[in-house]
């Protein structure tokens, strides 16, 4: 019985090692070396029915903790796109499928699909474009079960940088129409009526500066 158990554990580990792309594991390991960091954000929102000036915020991250944001103004920060540690992807078991090499801006990028093997994961399918030479992710297309789909594009200031200096998150967003002119006693708000189901594509552009990284 004990032998069988050891065999099963070994076989599972072996199978897992076979199924997860080694380059992704290298990137994850490199990301995990960042224990905490702080940085300043410059945010530009590009949504067809929202007009917002450029905003600034500060972010701080520590391993195992939620990313914290602070700002003097009202800011809207994307729920997805700042998970540099890939913890959301690695939270539940998954397999990877190699999709080959693609050329982007003169760089060869390895493309892989990430497919979760459990229904617990909110992730449905992710496509990662990895710069295997620089050991970092350049682009990811994430499809979730509950929070829709979004694409992340990451640029880095230097070849050695782990964390991006620019992130562009593209996502689908429902258009809504609410006249804020009325807030009186007689105001009734019909959620269905006010929400037009027309879907638009939104984009948030984040310049990330003044990194203070602790390894």
């Amino acid at each position, binding site marked *: 019985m004990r032998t069988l158990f050891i065999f099963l554990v070994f076989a599972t580990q072996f199978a897992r090692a076979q199924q997860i792309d080694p380059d992704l594991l290298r990137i994850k390991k490199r990301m995990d070396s960042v224990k905490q960091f702080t940085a300043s954000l410059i945010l530009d929102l590009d949504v067809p*029915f*929202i007009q917002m000036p450029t905003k600034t915020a500060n972010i701080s991250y520590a391993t195992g903790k939620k990313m914290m944001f602070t700002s003097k103004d*009202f800011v*809207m920060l*994307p729920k997805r796109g700042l998970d540099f540690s890939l913890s959301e992807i690695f939270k539940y078991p998954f397999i990877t499928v190699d999709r080959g090499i693609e050329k982007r801006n003169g760089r060869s990028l390895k493309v892989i699909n990430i497919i979760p093997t459990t229904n617990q994961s909110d992730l449905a399918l992710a496509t990662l474009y990895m710069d295997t030479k620089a050991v970092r992710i350049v682009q990811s297309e994430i499809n979730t079960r509950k*929070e829709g789909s979004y694409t992340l594009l990451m640029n880095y200031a230097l070849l050695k940088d782990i964390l991006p200096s620019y992130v562009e998150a593209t996502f689908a967003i429902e258009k809504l129409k609410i006249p804020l002119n009325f807030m009186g006693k007689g105001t009734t708000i019909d959620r269905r009526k006010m929400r037009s189901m027309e879907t638009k594509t*939104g984009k948030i552009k984040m310049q990330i500066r003044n990194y203070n990284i602790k390894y």
Partner: protein
Amino acid sequence: MRLLLSAELLKLVKQSKTYYALGSIMVIETLILITAYFQGSTILDLLLDNLKQSFYFEGTLLNGNLIMYIVLNSLWFNVPLILMIVTSGIVTDEYKDGTMQTLMLQAVDKWKVITAKYIVAVLFTLLVIGFMMLTTFILSYSIFGSGDLVVYINTLNFFEADDAFHRICWAFASGALTMIFYCVASMTLAIFIREAAKTWIAAALFLIITTLLLKVDFVVPVINTYFFPKLIDTWQQLFYYRLDWNQIFINNAILILYTLLFAAAGTYVFHKKDIG
């Protein structure tokens, strides 16, 4: 003229209607503040509901600037109606009490009498709008504090706190011109009609029709741009994301011309009509 103005101002200070008008403004403000205090967050949550699926929000939008903007929106109907009732009374009360005849028996020019009344109506309007702005500012900032403003005009427009405050101040100034236009129009109606109750109905109808005509497409671009009902929402243009100061200035200048035109018409009719 100076004596006539002093006399009209004295009447305005002495009459209880003036204080009823100021009291009404305070009641409207208080109701808005109470509603915002208890329901403001819920309405903002509804407004931003689908955005919450994609974003974290840092900071609050329920603040003094939003309250000032909501109070400013009473310039659509509530405030002009109160002002039109009070200012038309400057003329109709004199007819009702028979004091107009007494006044006309004095050695004064008719046009000077009515001009003084128009000037006092304008001063009263400015006083009310100033009072409204000051009290809203004090109450909303002391209860809700400062912060970014969100306004829905075709798009969801966000303004930083300082920018929002400047826009609100300019909107109050532009709104004051609209209110002056309404008050002058109501006084002109009072000169034509003379009876208080009928003038109130006519003034309310004028306000409603003007507001309705604002949304009507007259096909001809010049009418669509410069007909007076199309100018009464100029203060709202201060909350377009990209400000067109030139258009705002032109609209207000033309609205002042309309105001002068209405006042001139009233003065002419007053001058021609018998006092009895």
